[in-house]
């Protein structure tokens, strides 16, 4: 029976057959749960009650009105801005600087700056707890030595968010920088040399030649940094600040967790989760579209 089909059809059937176990797994354990979340987002349910009340778009409408969520959204934007500065702009500058240092020094840099990347976020959070600890902690001690009023970084509304940013920044800095260095290595030396012959100097060379050529890498790290700003920060928030003090360090993903597991508002929490998922889905499509465009521009 199968032998009657054309070679092309047979090949495509074989291909589909080989991907089907993986696709089956995704269907059952990723898409089905996601659809489940989407369905829950239209209901009011407290996790234990046998009945769920269908409420239509109410959960989504509440998202627009709830002030706590507004704070979480505002903080998510703040996290994003801070992290774009610390783990995108700063690594670009460091990468530029690194082209001037000795090869051996550069290697040492790479290993050092990259090492936090392989540490679990939960562990990274407690590693930094001591630095921020008001009693005997590093920053606290320096603060006191300088004669400043004692400051508890993690429980002061002004600094809690910054403290979380520092932890995530420390962990992700090297990762972004390594990607930038790899992207830089991919730019052909001939192009750079040609520009130098044409009179491009350090700054101009970077601004008009290297950065545009690096843009696929920069887009990639921009998207992953945005996802870090929403998701990565969750673990240190959960372990160290609990979103506080007074919601000062909460973010959108922490709010998803808090609504479901602390206040048992499963429907509302699911609605936020779906909204976040959709935002990232759109961003991902945008990134793929953009990188395809830039690649073709590069090859032309």
């Amino acid at each position, binding site marked *: 029976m199968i032998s009657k089909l054309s070679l092309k059809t047979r090949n495509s059937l074989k291909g589909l057959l080989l*991907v089907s*176990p993986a696709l089956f797994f995704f269907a059952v354990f990723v898409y089905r749960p*996601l659809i489940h*979340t989407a369905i829950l987002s239209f209901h009011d349910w407290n996790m234990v009650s046998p009945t769920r009340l269908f409420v239509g778009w109410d959960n989504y409408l509440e998202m627009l009105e709830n002030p706590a969520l507004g704070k979480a959204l505002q903080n998510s934007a703040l996290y994003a801005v801070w992290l774009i500065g610390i783990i995108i702009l700063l690594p670009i500058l460091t990468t530029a600087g690194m082209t001037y240092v000795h090869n051996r020094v550069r290697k040492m840099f790479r290993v050092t700056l990259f090492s936090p990347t392989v540490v*679990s976020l939960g562990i990274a959070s*407690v590693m930094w707890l001591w630095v921020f600890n008001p009693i005997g902690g590093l920053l606290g001690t320096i603060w006191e030595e300088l004669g400043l009023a004692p400051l508890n970084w993690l429980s002061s509304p002004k600094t809690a968010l910054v403290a979380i940013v520092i932890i995530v920044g420390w962990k992700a800095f090297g990762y972004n920088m390594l*990607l930038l260095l790899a992207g830089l290595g991919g730019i052909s030396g001939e192009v750079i040399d040609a520009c130098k012959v044409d009179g491009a100097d350090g700054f101009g060379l970077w601004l008009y030649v290297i950065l545009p050529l690096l843009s696929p890498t920069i887009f990639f790290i921009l998207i992953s940094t945005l996802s870090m700003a929403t998701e990565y920060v969750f673990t240190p928030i959960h372990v160290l600040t609990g979103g506080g003090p007074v919601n000062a360090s909460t973010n959108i993903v922490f709010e998803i967790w808090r609504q479901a*597991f602390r206040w048992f508002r499963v429907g509302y929490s699911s609605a936020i989760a779906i909204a976040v998922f959709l935002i990232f889905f759109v961003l*991902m499509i945008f990134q793929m579209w953009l990188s395809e465009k830039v690649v073709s521009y590069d090859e032309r």
Partner: protein
Amino acid sequence: MNSAGTSRVKAVDAIVDVTGTLILVFLFLFPFLWMVSMSFKDRIQTFQIPPLWFFQPTLENYRALFAREIFGTYFVNSVAVIVFSVLVSFVLAAPAAYALSRFDFKGKKDISFWILSVRMAPAIAVVIPYFFLGSFMGILDTRLILIIAYLSFNVPFATWMLKGFMDEIPTEVDEAALIDGSSRFQVFSRLIIPLTANGLAATSILCLIQSWNEFTFALFLTTTEARTLPTIVTQFLTFQGVVWGEMSAAATITVLPAVVFAILVRKHLITGLSFGAVKE
């Protein structure tokens, strides 16, 4: 004269390089150094001001940690969950990667996109349905639910990595073997798998690192029985205060394998961590 001036500039450059490097290296490695040193300190040494750099190390924290029953349980859980999830993810990912690398079929582009998109879904968006899935099937707080959860990021990752490694093998290799009378399955199992052995090893170690470090799923889907090692540090953040010594010992032991694994795959780290977006 001129060359003397150049060499002086070079010397100044070198000094700036070295001091700058040392400061940066110190800043980045400081939390590590402090964690390790704290794990060898007793209670009094921990809070000494100014902080102690040289002291009589004690193994008391490690002894206390190993004496805890949960340490053994969590460690075994971590190993079991990771081994199973990595093995199963390869059974699912290797054929899929081969298909995406070698076959042309309808909707191939869409399928690759959907596999990648799974990876992009924020963990927290699926952790809530996983929680219900677990409670519905009665497998909450078991290793099984964690294995399933870890598969959700290991399978797409392994598929993409392996596809990249398989793309590097010329299709002529397959065609020659097929002409010689091998079946597709033989080509896959006797040629492609051995030829991508390095890639398989690198991918599996990257999966190991990610699963070993995973924190969110482990925290929400388990309570006591199936907890994994990274979550153990939260046990030392008590209402009475932080148990610094033991917590540092636990953190040091959790970080160690990840560092060793990372050193093993350092060549493939960039490709792996950028999900194939950047090749080195």
